[in-house]
């Protein structure tokens, strides 16, 4: 599968599963000292060849004119972590939870197993240098991080892996939401449930 097909496949899935709105979110992969990133304002569900643009990792070039406005965040993440792919999405339930919590601790089996804990960081400007630094620092320790009221950034060795963390987070957030709606006392099934907070 070519890199373009990979962008198309993941972009389409992100949109169809409601993890991004029509023009929301962005994705990139690192190719050495270059970054392939989605075009500013592109529709992730409808990616064409023109929607994936190339720019420098360390230095600006004319590619930056077309690249996602969150390119500086992606660059900082690549410079500070071992991630080779980034997915930024706006998972609705996780975003809602982030408005109430400082961290999202999954209670479902898959989320507990794969994520353990997702930190929530606060920044009003989505593309600022300050936020880029905080997100990158968090991703040194966690594979996915929420930005309060905004969305999540996930890293992986490939796009599909980063997408998996996003999808998993949203499902965990949904389970938390449903169980809170149901109320009552949750029956714990995880041996070390009290340890997840320390993750």
């Amino acid at each position, binding site marked *: 599968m070519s890199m373009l097909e990979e962008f198309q496949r993941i972009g389409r899935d992100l949109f169809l599963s409601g993890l991004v709105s029509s023009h929301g979110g962005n994705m990139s992969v690192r190719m*050495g000292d270059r970054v392939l990133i989605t075009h500013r304002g592109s529709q992730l569900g409808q990616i064409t060849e023109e929607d994936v643009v190339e720019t420098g990792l360390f230095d600006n070039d004319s590619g930056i004119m077309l690249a996602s406005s969150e390119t500086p965040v992606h660059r900082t993440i690549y410079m500070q972590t071992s991630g080779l792919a980034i997915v930024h999405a706006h998972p609705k339930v996780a975003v809602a939870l982030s408005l109430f919590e400082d961290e999202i601790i999954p209670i479902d089996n898959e989320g507990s197993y794969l994520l353990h804990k997702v930190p929530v960081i606060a920044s009003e400007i989505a593309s600022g240098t300050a936020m880029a630094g905080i997100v990158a620092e968090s991703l040194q320790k966690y594979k996915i991080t929420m930005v309060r009221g905004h969305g999540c950034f996930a890293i992986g060795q*490939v796009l599909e892996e980063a997408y998996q963390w996003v999808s998993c987070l949203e499902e965990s957030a949904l389970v938390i939401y449903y169980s809170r709606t149901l109320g009552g006392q949750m029956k714990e099934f995880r*041996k070390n449930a009290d340890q997840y907070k320390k993750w």
Partner: protein
Amino acid sequence: MGGWVGKIARINLSTGKISVEDLPQKTAVDYLGGRGLGARILYDEVGPSVEPYSPDNLLIFTTGPLTGTKAPSSSRFSVTTKSPLTGTILDSNCGGKAGLRLKDAGYDALIISGKAAKPVCIIVDEKGIKIQDAGQLWGKDVNETTDILLGQAANPLTASVACIGPAGENLVRFAAVINDKSKAVGRGGVGAVMGSKNLKAVVTSGESKQIAADQETLDFIVYEARKVIKQSPITSIGLPTYGTSALVRVMDMMGAFPSYNFTESIFEHLNDISGEMLREKLFIKQKACWGCPIGCKRETKTANGTGEGPEYESLWALGPECGIHDLEAIADANYLCNRLGLDTISTGVTIGCAMELEKRGIADEGVRFGDAKSMLKAVGDIAYRRNHGDALAEGSRRMAEKHGAKEFAMQAKSMEFPAYEPRAMGVQGLSFATSNRGGCHLRGNMLGPEMLGVPKIVDHSGATGTVGLLIYHQHISAAFDSLGVCKFAGFAVSDELLARMMTAITGIEFVPQNLHHAGERIWNLERLYNLREGFTSKDDTLPKRLMEEPLKDGPAKGRVVKLAPQLEEYYRYRGWDANGVPKKEKLKQLGLEA
């Protein structure tokens, strides 16, 4: 502080002097231990003027901060030296108990220098270190040597013997050190360097006393790590049921299973030698290295004896690589390699190369494709450098070169390739070409992402983008080798879990990025070592066959390795110049500037 003991012992075999020094904490954190620590010491102390068999070459046994701890699959240790096979920096890694007993005795590492006047062995326990006469052991095979030395140990249950067989004594360039009778410190000739020092064995003993800075957190992380091992079909079913030979069928299915010295990429007698057949015919019971929940080892039997293995690589090298499909003969050859102290991969591939030379009418080294008897005889002859064995004991590159036919040696930097056909994979060829110890799969194996889908399946047609993935794997592999954890655990256990275990054990905060950064530092230091030895980008290459002769058959039919563009991308990605030399900024970033 948990993780590191904080002590390194030096033993000079020429003078008999033994001393103990502290392991500086910065070195420990920057290089982790194991392979990284060995590389740092070798770089600082063994320069280009030192020949591999010179008394000035060092033989360095190192453990990692996770060796012998509760971390799963953490019995690993490394032996570092300048290789007599490749001339490069070399470290070889092993899952026997020698490393954890060394740590239990109170040392992170042993630095052995000099050359004893007569055969000796080194005895390390909690009371100290002594050099002991080993005259009566010289000439004995690995099993005999191990039994005698364990019989002399105060408590054989807490002792471990790492020794050489006749191959190491006879300076076979790919002689191994064998630990606990069956676990090889296999590649690159560490056994020959040990033989050149007149050192027959290192015996380490101690009672386990590894502590953790935060035991409660460690227990939790270890519980989570064991959970993912149980959940993965690779580590919970494939490897435990079939051992590493589970790969035989998988690799053949992908057309990536070389045979007949890499002239074919599938094997017509596959069913005779598959993991399933091995289980049906030879299997006695599953075995595991110390502290490993996976247990990919197996005790097996043939009409002629019992032993461990053969592993996937050994089965392939002594089997299909030589056109042989007699499973019992392959297992017997594997047992023999262990007893004589030979690296099975280099042994098989060197014999396979000689078989091709014979088939082409170039030279007759006494072996024929498909002839198990001649292969078995060659194994014995190599270890004792008898007859044709003397030429074969030099390794495939030197042996083929002697006949003016270097291109038929399947090696990079003189180290024989393992069981992966690079033409059928995306960047495995690049991995072989850039490996700092020569053609090997354990420095950054693309098996996970390209074949098994770990973490996800990626395009293995060599499309752009996978070079970065290879570099990622080269770094994390260096970290595994330095921490003291088996890379097979890495099919399930993530860098994140490893970093959290490191934090809980050492009390120093580690995040995954620290492990990748340490891996990159180690990789670049090894590169600097090889550059200082005179290696250049011209040595980052592969045999012509892989780059020019398209595969004749199988799913990857028609493909060759397009090395040049991949190499260019690789150097750029690494922050090296066009000649493969790390740039100043890169060295500064890694704290490696002169």
